[in-house]
């Protein structure tokens, strides 16, 4: 059993590519997360506003794509993104 996670690619009203993440990300499902990111080319908004948990394995996926992503996150994830230093490399917006 893997951790429940739904990954839905889409477009923002401004036309930018968006990956909507619902659920939790940990080492059991980072491969799926990584594959979803790889499946979208170019600049991308990763919408984590309905992601309840993100661990360092998930962070490492985000770091790998840091050059081309923006992150939308709920307040509960902000400390993790900040402490890990990701916030200094990508734009993190509140939801």
């Amino acid at each position: 059993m893997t951790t429940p996670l739904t990954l839905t690619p889409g477009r923002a009203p401004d036309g930018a590519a968006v990956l909507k993440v619902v659920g939790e990300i940990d080492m059991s499902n980072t491969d799926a997360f990584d594959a979803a990111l790889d499946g979208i080319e170019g600049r991308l908004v990763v919408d984590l506003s309905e992601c309840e948990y993100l661990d360092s394995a998930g962070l490492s996926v985000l770091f790998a794509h840091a050059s081309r992503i923006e992150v939308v996150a709920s307040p509960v994830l902000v400390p993790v993104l900040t402490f890990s230093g990701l916030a200094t490399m990508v734009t993190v917006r509140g939801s």
Partner: protein
Amino acid sequence: MTRSDDAGHESTAAVAEVFAADDEVGPDLAAVDWTRTPLGPPADWPQSLRTAVSILLSSRFPMWMAWGPQLTFFCNAAYRRDTLGRKYPWALGRPADEVWAEIWGDIGPRIDNVLTTGKATWDQALLLFLERSGYPEESYHTFSYSPLRDDLDVVVGMLCVVSEDTDRVIAERRMATLRDLGSDPSVVRTEQETLAFARDQLARNPRDLPFTATYLFGEDGSARLAGATGVTAGHTGAPEVLPAGVPDALWPAAELARGESALVELDGPAFDGLPAGGWPLPPVQALVVPLQQQGGMPYGFLVAGLNRYRQLDEGYRGFVDLVAGHVAAGIASARSYQAQQRRAEELAELDRAKTAFFSNISHEFRTPLTLIMGPVAELRDRLAESDPRTSGELEIVHRNGLRLGKLVNTLLDFSRIEAGRTQARYEPVDLAAVTAELASVFRSAVDKAGLDFDVDCPPLPEPVHLDQGMWEKVVLNLLSNALKFTFEGSIRVAVRADGREAVVTVADTGVGVPPEEMPRLFERFHRIENSRSRSNEGSGIGLALVQELVGLHGGSITADSAEGSGTRFTIRVPFGTAHLPAEALSDVAGSTAVSTTAAPYVQEALRWLPTGHGDAALADVKAPDDAATASGPAVPATVLVADDNADMREYLSRLLSDAGYGVRAVTDGVEALEAVRAQLPDLVVSDVMMPRLDGLSLVAALRVDPRTAAVPVLLLSARAGQEASIEGLQAGADDYLVKPFAAAELLARVRANVELSRLRHHHARWHTALIDSLQEAFFVCDEEGAVVEINTAFTDILGYGPENLPYTPAHPWWPDAEAHPDGHRRFADAFSDLLGRNRGSHTIPATHRDGHLLWISVMFNPAQDPDTGRTVVVGTFRDVTAEHYAIQRDTALAALGIRLSEATSLPQALSGALEELEGLWQARGVLAVVFGDRDTPTVTGTDPDLSWGDLDVEARARLGALRERPVLSPVVHGGSGAGITLEHPEGLMALWLDLDGRRPFTDQDEVLLSLLAGHLAHGLGRAHQIDQQRETALALQRAILGPSQLPNGFAVRYEPAAQPLEIGGDWYDTVPLPDGRIGIVVGDCVGRGLKAAAVMGQLRSACRALLLQQTGPASTLMALDHFAAGLPGALCTTVFCGILDPETGRLTYSSAGHPPAILASPDGTTRLLDEAGSTPLAVRPGAQRPEAECHLPARATLLMYTDGLVERRRRPLTAGIDEAGEAVQAGRDTALDDLATEVMDRLAPTGGYDDDVALLLYRHPAPLDLTFPAESSRLAPVRKTLRGWLAQCGLPPRAVQSVLVAAGEACANAVEHGYRGTTPDEVRLRAEALVSDLHLTVADTGRWQAPEPEANAHRGRGVALMHAMMEQVTITPGPNGTTVDMHLRIP
């Protein structure tokens, strides 16, 4: 659940659903082929059955149920574990009467009853023999059967909720046996009595000990049966004797002799027909344990037949060991008593050796005696007519020859008896006639002594077998004895028949025997000192011989005596011949004629008697009738003659009276002193060797007394030589004469001394005489306190004589200020009282001239000196030293006794006793060293830090030397110390008093020290026994108290009262309920001891069962009211009963007179749960009880306790409750178990709790404790559980997320690093919330990889995240796993 039309699908789904509540038993139930049971496939089961099965399976409490016409069997996992054993899974789905066939006789009727009446049953501690472990097992169960109804409300089955009480019931039974065994240690018993006592106790527990046999080793290594229970002596399994060195002996005696236990299978033919004890079948195994002896080979061993219905586990083995320990201790004490008896016998042996010595010497005397006596007899006959003087002197020679001959013969009799060489010949004799004849021989002597002689010897019905010679000695000795000690009244001889015995009594009205001498009356060479008698001659063997001779006749002799009114000897001799050796019997009747033996007795007795009338001891031989003879004095003078030899006395008297002196004769020094004091003679002529007071002492006594100091003394002695005479003259004798002396020389010396004495004669001072006649010391003090006059008694007591008067203060007899500061002060106080001219009375210490300390009781009064008109103080005192020390001894023994009785352990007893000794002797320190089994001796000192290593070489040597001494004999090293050894339960103990050297350690101190040491040894032995009993009691209490497994989140303590050492009635209990809630009970039964513990056990079980029926706390207590009302001793038990929902923190509770629980909230407030209080149990049965509800806030702590924790004398209970509340608040950030210890320590009164304390703590929520496989797929469910728990802790969302992330990283690390490449193992997550600290631990059993930042950048990030999220992170890698420890402060 929706029903599908597909039947197969439905069936599978239904099975899954019905059995899903449990994944252990569920699958096995699912595997049963239900179509073969009357219940049919689960799909067709009625809803009621499905519900029942779900409840059953989801319960964590042991349950089983039966349903349908065959009572088909179901059970849950807890029941499988606790009760079903090997019958699982076979039992599932089978008819209940098949599953429990072996106990169906017990339970079948109960189940029928439930099915027919629909009413539940209730059984407590019912004995059932379950065959769940491969053998029928003794087990006890408390259970209820409740009806189960189908959808139509018809009873179709039953549910059993059960708890097993086996451990408790068995522990109580064993404890009772151990208690009974230890119940009578006070009386010293013989080994036989001890074993009989133990046997009676062991026989009372035929369940744990179906049979026992106690064997004792003999000196040859064989073992002898000394006691048995259950099995009869003579059974082949318990032979009377097990010979040594037999390899295949029934019991392995050789191993046991080495101190090893052995387990013996009882399968040989010798074991056929062994008794079954309290069971249907006999034991199949026996445990054989040695009866250990301290520091030696075991005394023997105990064979304990084992209950075949229990396994031989640690507890059973320990019980048998304790029983054997008790028996061994009993034997040890009985044998030490025997050893003392043996010592007494050894002393008797010494006496026998003495006899042998004397008799050997005596033998050598016989020849010369014969050579003397023969010629003397001839001379007597030849010269009878010629010269009366010569014939008189020959008479003296003859008489003394006879006396010596008699003494020699008596000693020879002894040696014959001892050597078994008596050549007795027992002839049938008319005892009455023989006795009367013997008595008649003495009549003349008795008449002459002025006594009545009553001989009452009527004929007896049959003859008595006697050896005539022996019998004569018996009667003559008794008669001679009676005459010797009787001065007025009568002597009576009587013969009677009494049943099958002839009784001869010889009674007198003489001086009697003091009661303290009675036990030694028949002892050889024992003479009663200072008893008034007609003669001091005698060897002290007459009565001993009489006893031996009577014994040879198969008879007995006893004596009754009252001091001052007489003595009666009673001899009993059996009629017939059965008691006599056949080869020594003669059927020729003996004659009644008296043999020649009698002559010396009578002759000797006659010599004691005065020649004239009056006092036998003081014989006025002849008054001087002639004023002047050639050698006599010019003026009539009196001479006092003192000699214990009657012939010598008479000879001297005749010589002196012939010379014209007035003569008075006395028999010893004491009489001489009295005679001189009564009337001063002109001269004393005294023998040196005399009983009671010898000549030299007589002179000294005369010289000391001013009134008699001037009386001249002429000493006569058998000791020749210059030195002897110098000694005599130094003692103050005026002259000295050595025997034999010429009559003329004696007369010349007497005359010279009398004349000299007359020249220096002074007036008698009546004043002095008067004062000196006082028995108490007398003194007069002048105004300055100087002692100006004293009497003799003063000198006797203090040693200071009149020669150094006056004695000015401070007087020389004051106790030394240095050595006896306290005594000096007391003396000074008394003296200042005296100077103040008061009347006074004091008991004070004083120092004798020779330095020893004594105690005097002094009284004084002021008086007017008629000569000078000045005020003087007149005082008297007497010596009360003996009384003082007797009181001191009693006080010291009592104080030590109290110390020892207060002690609750061996070390405490010892250190208390040492303090007592230190105080008593004002010692600098007291040291006790036990030389036990350990390498280093154990040191206990009044200085608590002292150890063997701290002692210097000298001290160690001194203590070592002490070891060589016999126990209880003190050694004194000047004033600097004293030591003694005594028996300590762990070995020999040397005790050393370190004294300051200023005060001497006197004889009295030595006596006191050995008395106290003896007392101490006994006390230590007792304390040792208490120690062992305490350990047993505690072990057993723990066995019957409390649940063995506490639910998570609880901590408990139980502490028995420090004094007395008894099991108490306090208890706590937690009961996990089937719905996940937890019942909590803390209770307190009235009283202590086994009875209270038994009541407690029953209430606890009842309360447990009631809670399981899912009623509320109030209903539980109400039901318990009814139960308690019918249980003796349960009235007034207080109980706090609550039901806690650990998910929500909701607590409902009710209290039956119990102190309120204390709730400490994280905001610092403390609340008492006192809203549902009511009366103790059974006070008002039937009355409604209140119930209250309370919500435990997150991270609050709940304390429940019994009153021992908070109740103190002279303090309101509320003060104690407040203190307990503060203690819990103070420990808000302490882990729960540590908090329990802190609360117990903080509230403990000095000296320990004086009542039992039971304590139970709960902190909400309970710590989270998860173990999961190290697989990444488990991370999400773990997070979910953790999230739920964190919510219970009431943390803010931000903190919750921090903990989740940190925990998630730690778990991920454990999953990823801990097990790369190996089989996943387990990870353990533990979280505990204190008031302001959250503590999280993640532990795995693998080794983390060294960080490789490039390869695993995100893992390095994980650790960084943990640090960022938590306050404190510690990662401890180790060979057996890695532990991450994290803390978060809770705002």
